[in-house]
């Protein structure tokens, strides 16, 4: 077998490694190994890298370009490493957004290079891509697709990043926005359509550049109106976009590994996005175009509801806890804001020492990213097996003495069960209200992400422990120790 045959077989092996990697990634036990498998695949692919022609990239004479490649790769490596290891656990989503954006940008640039090169010396296209004439327009098409999607994903991800960093977290909307965006998109698509069949000459280049800029702008315009809390979904979507862009690049430069890797990410990412929305019980269109999400993390003003709020002090709450047999803790976004995970751990240990059964009830969309609570509690070294999925714990909630709700709101809002009219109606919730006593820790009566009232706070068996979660927890721990 010729060496190139072997190289290609290697690439098939690489694709398999990616597939297995993703497979492992989707089960908790194997997830970490999955990531390593995929990384290994990537490394092998790098070594086996060769041109469409077939000759390896590494075996030919060194020149300026190779110096640039080396330097560029190392710079990227450094950026990546710093980003990956400096970032706080809770800031990881924005890190992902950033990396995704860079990937998108790279995809767009690669496609642009090919396109512009082709535009300058049309005949090259023929040599470069061993593809028959009747598909050359397909190639042009995929270059344009890669550019459009890639640059859109680039600018969009950066906005997502900034929003998660807290910059203009509030959605920026103005009437007729969706209409305007639609218009821009139409122009872009029109341009692409034209370029697909006019790939050569200076007009093509100009048109291409215009398209590129419009795509960048569209990425911004698309993400701007979306509330900061919906960013995880947006990032997941842009992630699958980048995947598709890479796949398109693969078609354009006829690189199989890129086609497969990109497509895998594209399709799995799309499904993942839908699953995320499902977990929040919201249609994806609602996330992308709905003004919902404006609540933006509990900043919404408090509203009045019939019913009485029964505050409680730390020491009294401590008593309730100290003499309970079974305590369930429901963490939410508030715990993340207060960075109170370590105090939570302390409290649960303290209760554990007194032979009280303590469990954590994790709602799939508690916090602002899937697995947000798992990450935080894991950071605070809460034993893995103390964490219970919502489905697992709900049936036994009525046998819970004290349910301690720490900065959670929507995920324990009975409205999801009871009020057809409510925006979160139908979303599965942790049935805290079934517990004998509920203690809710939050700073005020402010609303949660969904921006709606929570009747749980007014129920007879509910006590409100106001104040920043971290402060309250410290008080609680002290008081429990005192007992």
């Amino acid at each position, binding site marked *: 077998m010729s060496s190139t045959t072997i190289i290609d077989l290697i690439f098939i092996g690489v694709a398999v490694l990616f597939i297995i990697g993703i497979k492992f990634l989707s089960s908790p036990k194997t997830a970490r190994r999955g990531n390593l498998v995929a990384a290994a695949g*990537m490394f092998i692919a790098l070594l086996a890298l060769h041109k469409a022609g077939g000759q390896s990239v590494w075996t030919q004479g060194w020149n300026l370009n190779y110096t640039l490649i080396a330097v560029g790769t190392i*710079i990227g490596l450094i950026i990546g490493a710093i980003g990956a290891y400096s970032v706080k656990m809770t800031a990881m989503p924005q890190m992902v957004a950033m990396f995704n954006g860079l990937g998108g*940008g790279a995809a767009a640039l690669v496609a642009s290079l090919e396109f512009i*090169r082709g535009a300058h010396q049309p005949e090259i296209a023929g040599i470069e891509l061993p593809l028959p004439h009747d598909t050359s327009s397909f190639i042009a098409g995929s270059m344009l697709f890669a550019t459009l999607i890639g640059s859109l994903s680039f600018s969009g991800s950066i906005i997502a990043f900034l929003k998660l960093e807290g910059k203009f977290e509030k959605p920026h909307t103005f009437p007729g926005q969706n209409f305007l965006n639609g218009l821009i998109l139409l122009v872009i698509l029109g341009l692409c359509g034209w370029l697909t069949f006019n790939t050569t000459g200076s007009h093509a280049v100009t048109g291409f550049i215009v398209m590129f800029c419009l795509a960048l702008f569209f990425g911004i315009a698309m993400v701007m109106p979306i509330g900061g809390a919906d960013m995880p979904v947006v990032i997941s979507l842009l992630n699958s976009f*980048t995947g598709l862009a890479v796949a398109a690049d693969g078609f354009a430069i006829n690189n199989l590994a890129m086609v497969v890797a*990109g497509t895998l990410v594209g399709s799995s990412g799309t499904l993942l996005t839908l699953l995320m929305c499902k977990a929040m019980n919201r249609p994806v269109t609602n996330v992308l175009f709905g003004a919902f999400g404006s609540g933006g993390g509990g900043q919404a003003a408090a509203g009045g509801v019939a019913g009485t709020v029964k505050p409680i002090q730390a020491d009294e709450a401590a008593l309730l806890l100290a003499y309970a047999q079974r305590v369930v803790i429901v963490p939410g976004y508030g715990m993340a804001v207060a960075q109170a995970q370590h105090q939570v751990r302390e409290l649960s240990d303290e209760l554990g020492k007194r032979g009280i059964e303590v469990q954590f009830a994790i709602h799939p969309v508690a916090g602002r990213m899937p697995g947000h609570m*798992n990450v935080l509690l894991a950071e605070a070294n809460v034993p893995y097996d103390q964490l219970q999925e919502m489905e697992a714990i709900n049936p036994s909630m009525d046998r819970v003495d004290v349910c301690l709700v720490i900065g959670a709101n929507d995920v324990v809002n009975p409205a999801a069960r009871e009020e057809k009219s409510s925006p979160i109606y139908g979303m599965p919730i942790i049935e805290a209200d079934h517990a004998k006593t509920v203690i809710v820790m939050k700073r005020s009566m402010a609303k949660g992400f969904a921006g709606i009232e929570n009747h749980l706070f007014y129920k007879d068996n509910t006590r409100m422990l106001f104040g920043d979660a971290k402060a309250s927890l410290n008080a609680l721990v002290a008081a429990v120790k005192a007992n």
Partner: protein
Amino acid sequence: MSPETTIFILTFFVFVLSVFVGFEEISKVPSMLHTPLMSGTNAIHGIILFGGILALADADGGLARTLGFIAVVFGSANVFGGFMVTDRMLQMFKKKK
């Protein structure tokens, strides 16, 4: 039928099959893994780095070099950073003793 067309067809077919594999694999994944999964796949499309390398390898002229260089930097950050941040995330999930 020209071999080029066959190659094209087959590549397209590979694409189609990959779509199915991607979908099938994710179909049932616990929500606590959504973020790591997103991050992991994000690293995988970092393979665009190779696209950048290939483009830069036979780039001629300043523009091509500059763009190619940026592409390589971006791609490399995507792939390395992606895998590293995912690994860090997943460390969090390992069972505590």
